[in-house]
């Protein structure tokens, strides 16, 4: 153990290392391709944190879907299930939110908004139902089925905005604006909607579930030792997994609902700049800790916000920030693999030392 332990860094060191490695690699890449990395980073900083308006209306606004989806991803992965289909569930939620949002013109604000949120959650659950069924009944890996459901969702959005939900004028492939009452109010002086408070509240709730509830413990047990959970814990693994995945879908759907009722107020294609995938990095960077997800969600929100500014002010294509996201995921995965190898490499001879 002693030799191996040297390789295993503390979790927070890994996090810092992951972010630093991403930034350094981005800088090197920019310099090698003839951009001024200093100028690019300044533009990013300015776009993300340069002013209260930039922080709230660009960074935090983008952090909302990232945090909410990442919480759902973490919920599923705690139980050992990989929900790669958040993008699809996000769109399912967005479609449902738009549809409800177009019906509620005569409602009060609170019921209208709640109806939109509920509908988007349910749509996320519906979109997850098939993968859950396939997983629990036939053992089909949810990592594959949820991923494939993404493509169906994208096609469905495309169909919706050119068909049933297309704007009345029928010119552009987008929906009409949803009812005023169905729009989430904004925080004064910003474009940030109050969904941010819900996102923080959900993070607190899920943190508590992981820490203190018996269900949260069962979820972790299934994720870390499925056989022991079954034999020793007498935990119904399929039930726990199904619930975790469905909640995961509900959260991704809710993120889609937030985006429609808080930001775009209408449905169109490419509504998400890849939130469903970026959120995976957000959750992994935080090592599935809901408190950390809030922070890493804001960081990634800043990256997304900064990317736009970087393109505008320094002429660097905004896709460059995906380098950072990708490197973060790789470093975290490598650190995890090193840790797993460390724990698993106890040879019988090495265990002699701790024998009574």
């Amino acid at each position, binding site marked *: 153990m002693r*030799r191996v332990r040297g390789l295993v860094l503390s979790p927070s060191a890994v996090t810092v290392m992951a972010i630093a490695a991403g930034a350094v690699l981005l800088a090197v890449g920019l310099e090698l391709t003839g951009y001024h990395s200093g100028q690019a980073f300044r533009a990013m900083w300015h776009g993300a944190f340069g002013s209260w308006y930039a922080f709230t209306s660009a960074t935090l606004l983008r952090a909302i879907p990232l945090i909410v989806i990442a919480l759902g991803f973490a919920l599923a992965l705690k139980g050992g299930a990989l929900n790669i289909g958040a993008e699809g569930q996000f769109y399912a939620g967005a479609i449902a939110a738009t549809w409800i949002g177009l019906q509620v013109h005569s409602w009060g604000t609170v019921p209208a908004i709640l109806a939109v949120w509920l509908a988007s959650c349910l749509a996320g659950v519906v979109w997850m139902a098939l993968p859950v069924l396939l997983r629990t009944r036939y053992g089909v890996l949810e990592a594959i089925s949820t991923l494939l459901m993404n493509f169906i969702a994208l096609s469905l959005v495309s169909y919706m905005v050119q068909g049933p939900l297309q704007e009345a004028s029928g010119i552009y492939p987008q929906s009409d604006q949803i009812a005023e009452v169905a729009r989430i109010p904004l925080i004064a002086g910003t474009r940030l909607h109050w969904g941010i408070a819900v996102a923080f509240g959900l993070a607190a709730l899920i943190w508590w579930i992981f820490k203190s*509830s018996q269900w949260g*413990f069962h979820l972790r047990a299934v994720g*870390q030792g499925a056989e022991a959970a079954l034999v020793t814990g007498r935990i119904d693994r399929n039930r726990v997994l199904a619930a975790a995945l469905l909640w995961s879908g509900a959260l991704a759907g809710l993120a889609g609902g937030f985006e429609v009722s808080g930001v775009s107020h209408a449905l169109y294609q490419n509504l998400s700049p890849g939130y469903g995938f970026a959120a995976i990095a957000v959750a992994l960077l935080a090592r599935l800790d809901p408190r950390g997800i809030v922070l890493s969600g804001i960081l990634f929100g800043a990256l997304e916000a900064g990317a736009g500014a970087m393109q505008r002010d320094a002429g660097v294509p905004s896709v460059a920030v995906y380098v950072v996201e990708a490197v973060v995921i790789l470093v975290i995965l490598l650190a995890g693999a090193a840790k797993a190898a460390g724990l698993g490499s106890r040879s019988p001879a*090495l*265990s002699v*030392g701790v024998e*009574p």
Partner: protein
Amino acid sequence: MPVRFALDDITKRYGSVTALDGAHLLLEGGEVHAVLGENGAGKTTLMRVAFGLTAPDLGTVALDGVPVAIPNPRAARALGIGMVHQHFTSVPQLPVAENVALSAGWPARPGDMRRRLALLCQTLDLPLDPDALAGTLPVALKQRLEILKALATDTKVLLLDEPTAVLTPREAAGLFTFLRSFASEGGAVALITHKLNEVLDGADRVTVLRAGRVTHTGPAEGETRSTLTRHMIGRDITSPEQSRSVSGGDVLVRVADGVLASPSFQGSGLRSGSLEVRAGEVVGIAAVEGNGQRELLRASAGVWTLDGGVVELAGSCAFIPEDRTSEGLIPAMSLTENVVLGGAPGASWLRHAGPLTTIDWQAAAEASAKIIEEYGVVAPGPESPVATLSGGNQQKLVLGRALLSEPRVIVAENPTRGLDVAAATEIHDRLRRAAHNGAAVLFYSSDLDEVLEMADRVVVVANGRTVPVDGAPGRTRVGELMLGSRSPGS
């Protein structure tokens, strides 16, 4: 001319841990030499050095008086050293002939392979079907295949690591007959074993290791169980009083005509299992691996559900699964979390608020600290991962957790597997005490001697069917019943 194989003054360190500390092993041609020792004493490391799997830090190896270097198993085989490992090393999807050819380095010509194998089987008098797939062979024949592989090249020294752990008494006796004949041709045999009877009955000489050092080496004749035990652990083991309880308690476990197909599709499954366990008694299950005992035990504990038949369980039941690191514990979780994992429904740390159940981790930590203290679990603390504990300490935690809620029924599946004598004795002691205090204990071990020692009553499971054993069960009688209708050997 008889060989002499000598390992001298072998030292091997892993970091700060000394696995072997100047150990020696001298094998003479014509002898069967037993290597004894507790878990972690260095037996397997010594064998690995002899077979070139582990490079010693210090020490010499000599064959017929000539110092030799054995950097790898290939070199060992070239020198005429063969090894039968504790775990089977054949390719299950390949036929016997190809497995032997693969190991011996024979050219892969089908006719040729079969001819050479037939000759080998005949010479050694160990018949085996060359076309049978290795994975489908019964355990005893799988081991025969391993022996054929080890002897396929011109082998003078045969090393075996716990070869009888998976065999019935009769099969083990067959193995010793073979080893004896191999030795009588001038070969040398070294075998690791945990079973003292085998040393006393089957070996010529014995070398005992403790903490990497040889504490005794000499003829097996004149030794007794207690002298060997003293060499192994350095003191006498005082077995607790055999307070055989009077079985007049209530029936707490009843299985009637239980049927359960093997979930892993291995072995016979349970075809017709019936048993009763009363309060205050230890019922021992004797069976050869894969005969349905696992299904019977788990159905009794309510872990698996029977396909047919009835299970009646009166009161709470604790189950101790055989594989503690995959089924009994979650290695990455802390001791406390693992205590919570196996907690009874009414555990002290559970709090109920409406439909919501929460965990009071403070109370759970107290419970695990109590187990650590009471059972002498050596651990850095209740919050360190279970993976950092040794096997014996992990099993103490499993047992302490199982007994924490004072269950009325305890079902233990091979609870001393891989434990040294002292740890195993403590497990026995605790289980017997639980029975004495009124629990019904159902106990299975793959070691028949252990079952006979522990049990008030024995139930044999053979070929998926239970056979109750009346009266004081003799070892031979139980051994015969264990074989059931299955033919022994080929």
